[in-house]
């Protein structure tokens, strides 16, 4: 029986507490911490019993429960990890949809069913990759390992290691399906590393196959590193605008027809005369240096320094001064044609 307002409040609070009995003790205490004082204010401010004015304690508790959804503050913003999980879940949804859509292509309800069929093939490949990694770590012979897991260059060891690797991988594969969480993750991580190793090995093997042709060509061609040609007359003077032909009269195109012009720009030389870049003359004479300017090939300031004189590229080769390797000096229109251009060694000056 209710005697005082305080008793009424205590009873009411007690009933509310009871109705919140399923909440954790600490949460309930927190919720009800101020309730007696609050109810005292309510009582003081009006007429009638608490139950009449506030409804039953049970209803009151229910109201409290819904408004106290986030006791201790507003809900925290989602954590980074939670957001990542959300992104992952969304990606998985798309992946599943794609999986189902691609299924008919493989004659199954889901594309992943086809991938499951390929699993043993992966086991075999994995065995090979593991054998390669083991061989690579154990091999200290210094020779290229090739595409088999050779140790010390031995084929027998390679085949043995390959067999062991493949068999072990299959044996392990048949048991890996029942692994627990962490070993499973370690397995995935290992697989990713193996795939990376495989990709690196594949691209290396691929590029070495492709580069093989290139190196052969370069090896046989002793002129592959020629950039420019410099022709000297018997006085050791640089011949500018020289034209060079083979036995068939075809002009020889050697070197790299690019040159720094007067403004310092790296431009293509349009004429087929040598040298492309006269200012790179390796045996430059002080007197001829002025004539070695590529922009002033005829170098009127140094008479005689230009040998046969200016060359008109459009003129008939037979009527212009030219040096033909196979015809030797007989075709050379230099003043003293008995002397081969080749006999004038640049070192003679």
């Amino acid at each position, binding site marked *: 029986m209710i005697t005082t307002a305080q008793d009424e409040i205590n009873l009411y609070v007690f009933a509310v507490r009871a109705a919140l009995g399923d909440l954790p003790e600490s949460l309930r205490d927190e*919720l009800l*911490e101020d309730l007696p*004082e609050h109810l005292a204010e309510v009582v003081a401010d009006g007429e009638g019993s608490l139950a009449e004015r*506030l409804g039953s304690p049970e209803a009151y508790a229910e109201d409290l429960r*819904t*408004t106290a959804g986030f006791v*201790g503050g507003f809900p925290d913003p989602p954590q980074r990890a939670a957001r990542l999980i959300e992104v992952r879940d969304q990606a998985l949804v798309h992946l599943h949809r794609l999986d189902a859509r691609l299924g008919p292509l493989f004659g199954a309800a889901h594309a992943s069913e086809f991938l499951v069929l390929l699993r043993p093939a992966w086991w075999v490949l994995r065995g090979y990759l593991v054998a390669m990694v083991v061989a690579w770590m154990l091999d200290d012979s210094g020779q290229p390992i090739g595409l088999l897991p050779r140790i010390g260059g031995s084929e027998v060891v390679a085949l043995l290691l390959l067999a062991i690797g493949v068999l072990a991988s299959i044996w392990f594969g048949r048991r890996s399906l029942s692994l627990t969480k962490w070993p499973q993750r370690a397995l995935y991580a290992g697989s990713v590393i193996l795939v990376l190793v495989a990709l690196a090995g594949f691209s290396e093997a691929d590029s070495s196959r492709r580069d093989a042709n290139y190196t052969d060509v370069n090896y046989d061609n002793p002129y592959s590193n020629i950039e420019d040609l410099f022709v000297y007359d018997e006085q050791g003077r640089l011949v500018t605008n020289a034209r060079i032909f083979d036995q068939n009269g075809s002009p020889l195109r050697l070197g790299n027809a690019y040159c720094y012009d007067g403004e310092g720009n790296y431009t293509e030389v349009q004429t087929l005369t040598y040298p492309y870049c006269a200012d790179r003359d390796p045996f430059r004479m002080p007197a001829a240096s002025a004539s070695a300017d590529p922009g002033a090939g005829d170098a009127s300031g140094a008479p005689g320094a230009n040998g046969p004189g200016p060359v008109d590229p459009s003129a008939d080769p037979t009527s212009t001064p030219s040096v033909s390797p196979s015809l030797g000096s007989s075709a050379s229109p230099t003043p003293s044609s008995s002397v081969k251009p080749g006999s004038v060694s640049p070192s003679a000056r």
Partner: protein
Amino acid sequence: MHRVDTTQLLKGVLDLACLAALRDEDGYGYDILRRLRTSGLTEVGDASVYGTLRRLFNAGLLTTYVVPSDEGPHRKYYALNAAGRAELQRSGKIWHGFASTMNDLLRERETA
């Protein structure tokens, strides 16, 4: 469908309503309840206001102080602090946007 009823709608805006009720004048729990009811939110319950005030206080949006009383119990007054005013302004904007969207939506449907 969910039938629209005031109790349901109140749940979403009770925080904002309590903050607004404290905008011009501090108040104690039952006082705030009365303001809300006088303003027209007749269905709001005492427990909801009590719970909401506690939650807003815990969130750092309100400060409290106790005013002794000669007759009757001491009263715990709630007051908006700076964070509470900022939150009132922010949530108020959201509410205005939401309400005008709903108004436009309803008007279109009615005239259509």
